[in-house]
């Protein structure tokens, strides 16, 4: 079971990196992130985590136990 949780958190990690890289990094004239890109990545991660938390709460409310969608 911990194995499953571990796997899911690793997948979340990769998902976050992919999404925030794709949304925030578009210039490849230098090989290090500039300040703007770094700020963007950090906000993207924080927003995504807060978003996931809220979705999780709402999902549990609706989907609690084994309720049917209708």
């Amino acid at each position, binding site marked *: 079971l911990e194995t499953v949780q571990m796997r899911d958190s690793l997948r979340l990690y990769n998902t976050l990196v992919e999404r925030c890289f794709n949304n925030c990094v578009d210039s490849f004239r230098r090989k290090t992130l500039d300040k703007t890109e770094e700020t963007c990545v950090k906000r993207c991660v924080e*927003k995504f985590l*807060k978003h*996931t938390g*809220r979705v999780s709460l709402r999902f549990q409310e609706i989907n609690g136990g*084994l309720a049917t*969608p209708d």
Partner: protein
Amino acid sequence: MPKGGEEAVNMAQQEMEFRVDMFSRLTAACFEKCIGRSYKDSELNVGENSCIDRCVAKYWQVTGIVGQMLGGAQFPGK
């Protein structure tokens, strides 16, 4: 373990994987629909928060419609 027990474990595991998969697709879909790309700050604003709530509710309704159309009885969440 008796055969029936093993099958029950497999079913439970599949149901769990199904829910995890649904949750990650739902999360991605509502992020695309509700969260602006500008990232002006790191908080969710009021509009984003209420968009998320409605988005989750509507996604769940779509889950119900699709479940019924697929002949829902055998699907989890029915």
